[in-house]
């Protein structure tokens, strides 16, 4: 079988932080010793544009993949999805060292209420956050575990296939993704120097489609032509590089917290996990005297600043503000609701 190997991609940190480089190097050195892995290194994922060799490489990867990045897994996963590097979200079992028992209670996630991705091939993409540990061992252990999990999954599927009754879809995708090179082409090989060419910094929103309900608030709000829709009329971050560096305004406007700015300072906006209490931090800014502005006012101010920088007129809250708060309480509870329930239970 040609695709029994697991592709592992390490995406480097921006800049030259020696501690980060050291971790990256020790992880790579250890991974290379592992059997059954294809290990590659690319620069900081978020900065790769469509022409970067690292992107082309990732686009060519078939089968299951593990991506180690200095990003939250959600940010990494949906960033790849936007770039057409799609798969099912592989659950990592890595737990940062400082999470306490609260996390263990995080129950089965509710079915997502977002519109999800489309044309997802039958493979899994696992995103591991390099900020969770400062030594390589936990990552190596987790990659080994994932390799086993992928192998078991493949074997289970193969058994099902041999025993008959695969639906057409399963059969088609199984063959396409796991057995045959697309268009008869083998995955091209890339020179390490090209793969590692340092890209310029980029800044743009990433939509988490597991949360996004396609409400279109963001496209109404952004006045810089960043958002568009695809052929299926689904919201799309169409012109990524039209976005204004440092501006996270539309993430505050999204009623579902579906818009991630992976490099923003606040974990909630940078794509911190929504399942775990300790992972998701509540923004108490309002409580400490920041209540002069609410999130929408803040978003409008941030947008005005960018408009003025562009030599345009500020619009304040007169354009594209959400008509929000309708039917908020309907629908099944999601992880964020569970989080707040858990806070209730703390009885503060």
């Amino acid at each position, binding site marked *: 079988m040609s695709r029994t190997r697991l592709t592992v991609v390490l995406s480097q940190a921006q800049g030259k932080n020696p501690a980060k480089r050291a971790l990256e190097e020790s992880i790579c050195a250890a991974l290379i010793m592992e059997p059954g892995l294809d290990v590659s290194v690319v620069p900081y994922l978020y900065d790769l544009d469509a022409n970067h060799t690292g992107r082309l490489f990732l686009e060519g990867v078939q089968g299951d993949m593990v991506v180690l990045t200095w990003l939250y897994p959600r940010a990494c996963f949906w960033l790849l999805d936007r770039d057409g590097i799609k798969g099912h979200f592989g659950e990592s079992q890595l737990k940062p060292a*400082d999470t*306490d028992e609260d996390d263990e209670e995080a129950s089965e996630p509710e079915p997502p209420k977002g519109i999800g991705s489309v044309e997802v091939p039958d493979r899994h993409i696992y995103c591991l956050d390099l900020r969770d540990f400062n030594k390589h061992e936990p990552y190596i252990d987790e990659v080994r575990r994932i390799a086993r999990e992928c192998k078991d999954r493949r074997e289970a599927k193969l058994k099902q296939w041999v025993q008959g009754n695969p639906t057409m879809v399963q059969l088609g995708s199984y063959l396409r993704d796991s057995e045959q090179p697309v268009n008869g082409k083998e995955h091209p090989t890339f020179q390490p120097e090209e793969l590692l060419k340092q890209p310029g910094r980029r800044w743009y929103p990433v939509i988490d489609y597991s949360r996004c309900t396609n409400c279109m608030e963001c496209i109404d709000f952004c006045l810089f032509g960043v958002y568009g829709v695809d052929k299926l009329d689904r919201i799309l971050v169409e012109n990524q590089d039209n976005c204004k560096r440092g501006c996270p305004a539309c*993430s*505050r406007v*999204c*009623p579902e*917290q579906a818009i991630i700015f992976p490099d923003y*300072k*606040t*974990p*909630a*906006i940078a794509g911190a996990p929504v399942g775990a*209490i*300790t992972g*998701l*931090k*509540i*923004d*108490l*800014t*309002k*409580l*400490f*005297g*920041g*209540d*002069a502005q*609410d*999130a*929408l006012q803040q978003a409008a101010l941030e947008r005005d600043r960018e408009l003025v920088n562009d030599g345009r007129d500020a619009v304040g809250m007169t354009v594209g503000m959400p008509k*929000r*708060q309708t039917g908020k309480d309907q629908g099944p509870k999601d992880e*964020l609701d569970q989080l*707040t329930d858990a*806070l*209730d239970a*703390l*009885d*503060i």
Partner: protein
Amino acid sequence: MQDLTFMMGNFAAELPGDLRYATTNHMWCRAADGHLRFGFTAYAVRLMQDVYFLDWVVNPGDTVTQLQQIGHIETSKAVADLFAPVGGTIVAFNQELLKDPSGINVDKYGAGWLFEMAGDAGICKDVQEYHQFLADNWEKTQRLIKGKINTED
């Protein structure tokens, strides 16, 4: 003035009677060496829980206006921007906390102080007024915590 206790559910937040309080910032204020020393109240610390990271975006000597952003905090349960409780000049930050911010959890009314300012503490309230403020806003605060991140309450 007498010490007071504010009940946050089952948790008793102690409010020393000899301090003044910047109510909207949930900071206490004490006059020390001609300066004003500020720190978090037990109420604030209980909401945030273990402090992991504290960062200031202004420097000693800087003049700040009331409610200007001066820093950022990350705890086990929350993140928040921090704002100047009064207008004036920043005199010093507690250097110990920059090394280990958990001092805030250990001794919030003592060694866990945050910063010192030169300014007018006139807008700070006494313990009774702060207690009343907490009581008046308790409903709203619970709603804020329950309200989703980044959204209106």
